[in-house]
């Protein structure tokens, strides 16, 4: 019967509950034909996939083989053990409410400096969060009466961001990173944290990073206060800022 395990153990599902059905694709270099097929099956075996079925095995030139594979994964996950994730029950208030709460509870205008840093030229994401217009019908930070949002745009060096934050007495720094190949974002973000620490201002600001491949874990790991990924709305960010500031002042 198509029902989740009552104990909170989840496992991929194809057409029989518990079947562990997964689809996999990858390219194997340096092999072809039957050997590639068998290599793919063995690889799947190591991944804990039973009955691996190579549904296609295409020679793609340069001595490489593209594999599509189906099989049944043995592993499962206990979702009872997953803590600290949004269970979808926290309803985030809209701009009006948040703006009002900033005034009420915090009683001051928050300055936030934002930029897409280093060689990254992708403005669309940071603009979606900061510009008036906002994103998906959710207004951007510039439109909040109680947030002074300074959008520095893209290709801004970490040094410039730090300088501007200090100059403007920013309480919040918002950085965007979209290009992630060879972990260039990790390098850029680490540098920013180092600079802030060198200037002894790290503790004085809320440091937020966003981008399509940013996760909250990565952000924490790199020393940020928060990380926002795909589909973030400006109100999510404003809500986080407000709460974190209140928390900092021991008023959360």
């Amino acid at each position, binding site marked *: *019967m*198509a029902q989740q395990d009552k104990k909170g153990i989840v496992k991929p599902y194809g057409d029989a509950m518990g079947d562990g059905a997964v689809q996999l694709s990858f390219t194997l270099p340096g092999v072809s034909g039957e050997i590639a097929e068998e290599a793919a099956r063995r690889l799947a075996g190591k991944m804990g996939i039973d009955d691996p079925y*190579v*549904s*296609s095995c295409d020679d793609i030139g340069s001595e490489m083989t593209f594999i599509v594979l189906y099989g049944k994964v043995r592993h499962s996950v206990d979702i009872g053990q997953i803590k600290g994730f949004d269970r979808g029950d926290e309803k985030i208030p809209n701009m009006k409410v948040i703006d009002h709460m900033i005034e009420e509870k915090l009683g001051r205008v928050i300055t936030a400096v934002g930029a897409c840093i280093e060689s990254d030229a992708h403005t669309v994401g940071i603009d979606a969060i900061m510009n008036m217009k906002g994103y998906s019908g959710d207004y951007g930070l510039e439109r909040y009466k109680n947030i002074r949002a300074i959008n520095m745009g893209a290709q801004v060096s970490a040094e410039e961001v730090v300088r501007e934050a200090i100059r403007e007495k920013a309480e919040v720094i918002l950085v965007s990173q979209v290009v992630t190949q060879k972990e260039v974002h990790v390098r850029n973000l680490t540098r920013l944290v180092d600079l802030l620490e060198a200037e002894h201002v790290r503790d004085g600001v809320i440091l937020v990073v966003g981008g399509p491949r940013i996760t909250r874990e990565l952000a924490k790991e790199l020393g940020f206060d928060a990380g926002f990924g795909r589909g973030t709305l400006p109100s999510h960010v404003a809500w986080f800022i407000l709460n974190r500031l209140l928390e900092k002042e021991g008023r959360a």
Partner: protein
Amino acid sequence: MESKLGLDKTVIDECRGFAEKITGDLMGFIQSHTTDSVERAVTRLMGLDGTDRIGTPYPNVLVDAVKRSRGLGQGIAAASADLIAYTGGALADAVKAIADKKLKLSDVPALDWDKRVEIVRPLAEAGLAEIKSRADERNSLRAAYPMSGPPLFYVIVATGNIYEDAAQAVSAVANGADCIAVIRSTAQSLLDYVPYGATTEGFGGTYATQENFKIMRRALDEAIQREGRYVNLVNYASGLCMPEIAAAAAFERLDMLLNDSMYGIIFRNINTYRTFVDQYFSRMINAKADIIINTGEDNYLTTADAVEKAHTVIASDFINESFAQRSGLPPRLMGLGHAFEIDPSIEGGFLMELAQAQMIREIFPEAPIKYMPPTKHVTGNVFQTHLVDMMFNVCSVMTDQSIHLLGMLTEAIHTPFVGDRYLSLSGARYAKNTMRGIGDEISFKPDGFIQRRAREVLGKAHEMLAEIVDISLVESLARGMFADIHRDPKGGKGIDGVVKKDDDYYNPFLEA
């Protein structure tokens, strides 16, 4: 709708005329014969249901017993009347007594015709009234929750477990499905009985049982309310039990049934005559229940070449149309089939598909034609198969198909997983929405490749039908003219179940 293909109307009319002759030639046989399954369907329509202790359905118990003792020539209705009169109770009780060996049919005296009619007619009327009330129910639901515009998205569920099927169907509805077809277990079409009760163990599909129909209908009716859109339930009145499944479907408000006049012959090696008799009666039931039939022409191009044998699809559509009409089905219930089966590696293949899909649309303007996805030439490279399915979506929208069975990216691998169906529905919705109105916007070059292809295929269908008029449909099947498969009219499964009617044969459902 103006013709985009410049098809010759007289050729089309002649095709229809040929088809009428072809099916007409068989009506003598059809009307003078009945089958085990027709008779079992009659018992079901009179309200008989349930099984004996070892699981044999009562309709089988009764029909087999009658067949053994006095034969089926008079019809099961006659025997039922006799039984009811003799036992003085309900038919089911009498059958139970037979199953329990407490009652011997040879002890039951035969009533005269009028008496039999008097006893059976109320039962038949109750059955028909029940069916009618189901059809009315459908109409009011469709008024309250209108269906999507064409093409209707049709997906199959085939887990083998009716409860998994239901959960997967509900997911499909949430993602835009308009029709849910529960594929039957691989073995079922050759069973000479309809399994009973809720089932959870099928292979490549789930057993068609009346209880399973009910479970799925309930799940879909809830989904209809939630989504605010009518969703059609589909199953198979095909195989050795066509008429019985039609009866069960009528009671459970199924909306569509796979029901072809020749599929069983060609693809399941069921006896030719058995099939012709069964299809006739099953379609009569469908007509009463207002159920759309889906014919099986798509299958032809899985065994025959889709480029060279495209005309066999059209020819068969004309034949299915004519048979359907003879059973009383109006065009709005004729879901004639065709398929997108041209090898994707053929240059210009899509243009041929456009021509053929458009042609069928124009030849059967009132029919809710059913367009079937690529299956044979797709591969286990699911990404590529997904694209072939997308081209099918494109063709469907461009040519305004009515029912669109969605292709699945895993067609070459397994019956659809729940995630496969989601991906497929997302793609089809995308095509329907982004291309909305394209059919109206484009026209085809006069005498261009597309128009010429359509003309050629229609011409060949015309020729083929003319030939069948000469040699008979039975002979054409023997010669492998459909799907390249040859079927000896004296062979095939279920031949023993074909029975000549006596002069005093009685079947209350042939009257109404």
